[in-house]
């Protein structure tokens, strides 16, 4: 088990909104609910991904509640783990490098063991049931924890400047930087697939035999030409430039109730085949305005 991993390719959203997700099952002309109850333990989730799930919560648990997401979220037990940033991480500049809630237990690595934070009633009960595995925190542990956190804070190489970002981006709608990067972009949609907060889905009915069909939802990507297409052939985002800019605007929107839509996990940078870097694009757009 690698507990010192940098990042997974797919974020934990895949357990709650699956890449292919069965919603409904058609039998004898009637829909039946496709929700399957299964409990899940996610071990070793990084704080950026916990923040990512909290953003998905705002969308899927907001009224009307998505029953599939809710059932899976409620049955999941989440154990967070501390991490060391690599060259792609910029979570610290977005305030998502530390999770205050959204987990059941959070493990922080110390030189002589693990400091465990309890984040929920379920987590508390688990600790109670396994008392023999835990000891009280000492002053020395706290000191070590602090040192580790300070050392970690200093090791971030990337930073997204959030100050005035929303207004600046809006003013730079016509910036030539968008065009420059839209021309490099391959429009493959990788960044959407690996993003912990991208959640667009397409719905599709599929016959599994002559009598039964399923309604499935699948990840969709705003880089696909079909994303803004409506019946009759009108496309609301007809060019790659429109679609490229749309993703940056969607990620850079600060929702007063859900916060910033990007958590700084660095996945879109690491898995971009064209080598486009999120922070660099935004910095250049900002620069083009001055």
């Amino acid at each position, binding site marked *: 088990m690698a507990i010192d991993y940098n990042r997974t390719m797919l974020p934990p959203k895949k357990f709650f909104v699956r890449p292919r997700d069965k*919603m*409904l099952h*058609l039998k004898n*002309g009637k*829909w039946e*609910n496709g*929700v399957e109850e299964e409990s899940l333990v996610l071990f070793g989730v990084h704080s950026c991904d916990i923040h990512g799930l909290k953003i998905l919560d705002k*969308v*899927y648990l*907001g009224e*009307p*509640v*998505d*029953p599939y997401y809710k059932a899976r979220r409620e049955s999941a037990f989440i154990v967070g783990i501390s991490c060391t940033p690599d060259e792609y991480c910029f979570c610290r500049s977005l305030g998502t490098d530390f999770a205050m809630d959204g987990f059941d237990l959070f493990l922080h690595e110390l030189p002589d063991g693990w400091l465990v934070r309890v984040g929920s009633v379920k987590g508390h009960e688990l600790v109670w049931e396994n008392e023999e595995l835990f000891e009280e925190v000492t002053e020395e542990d706290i000191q070590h924890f602090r040192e580790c956190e300070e050392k970690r804070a200093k090791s971030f190489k990337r930073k997204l400047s959030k100050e005035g*970002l*929303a*207004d600046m*981006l*809006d003013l730079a*709608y016509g910036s030539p930087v968008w065009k420059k990067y839209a021309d490099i972009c391959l429009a493959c949609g990788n960044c959407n697939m690996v993003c912990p907060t991208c*959640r*667009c*889905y*397409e*719905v*599709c*009915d599929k*016959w599994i035999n002559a009598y039964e*069909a399923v*309604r499935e*939802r699948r990840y*969709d990507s*705003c880089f696909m030409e*079909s*994303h*803004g*297409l*409506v*019946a*009759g*052939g*009108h496309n*609301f985002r007809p060019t790659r430039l429109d679609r490229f800019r*749309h993703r940056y*605007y*969607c990620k*850079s*929107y*600060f*929702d007063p109730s859900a916060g910033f839509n990007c958590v700084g996990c660095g996945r879109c940078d690491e898995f971009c085949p064209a080598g486009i870097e999120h922070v660099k694009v935004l910095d250049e757009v900002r620069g083009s305005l001055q």
Partner: protein
Amino acid sequence: MSENPYLSYDARILEVKDLTPREKLFTLRFVDPEVGENFSFKPGQFVIVDVRGFGEFPISICSSPTRKGYIQLCIRKVGRMTKFIHRMKEGEIVGIRGPYGNGFPMERMEGSNLVLVAGGLGMAPLRSVLWYAIDSGKYEHIWLFYGTKAYEDLLFRDEIVHLLKHGNAMNCSVKLAYEIESPSCIYLERGFSDRVCKGVVTDLFRGEEFDVENTYALICGPPVMYKFVIRELSNRRLSPGRIYMTLERRMRCGIGKCGHCIVGTSTSIKYVCKDGPVFTYWDALSTRGLI
């Protein structure tokens, strides 16, 4: 099971009427009377039609909530799903979920003039407003400016021609613009030379005066139409808060989850399905990309 917002309710097709070669009017009633009674909607809201095993699509309701017991959907045959439903017959069952969206603020507009500006299929949601306004009698005067390609594309032809003839008694003035000439248009134009003309919908504003302090404009049409109509209204100094438009986007869920209808930039993001589909012109000025 009933908590699942993605599940649709059975509705029976009571009547299918050809409006034009491309558009059909479907009259539907919920099979479960209790569902029908609980289904209350406002003009401008939409439903998602669920053809089970084939897919779903959003369609605005084109009947008025004042006419109870049924809902009507005007559906143009443009794609795979609409082609499918066009083959359905009276008595068959489709799924309906909704209503979704905000709808037009009918209460706020009470006592004012309404200027309805429709282009092509944009007549469908505005028909709901039109009959709501006429039936309730709570509005000062109603103008309907309706532009179509040709007489053959005129939706709800009987009703529109009836209002053209007898609208005054209902405080309603209807004006029509068409782009392609045909004998029927010329016949209409001869009878109502002041109200039917060849041209585009903005030509119909000519010669009309309305008190901008006491008027609301409601617009629905193809995407290209909005800016021309808004320019016409703005020239008359109608406030951006008094111009309502209902917009179209790709929608899969109708409840703000699937992400397709997100519009805007870093300063303002709107979901057309749940924040709209009715927006004011002020919303369009403050959220880039709405129109």
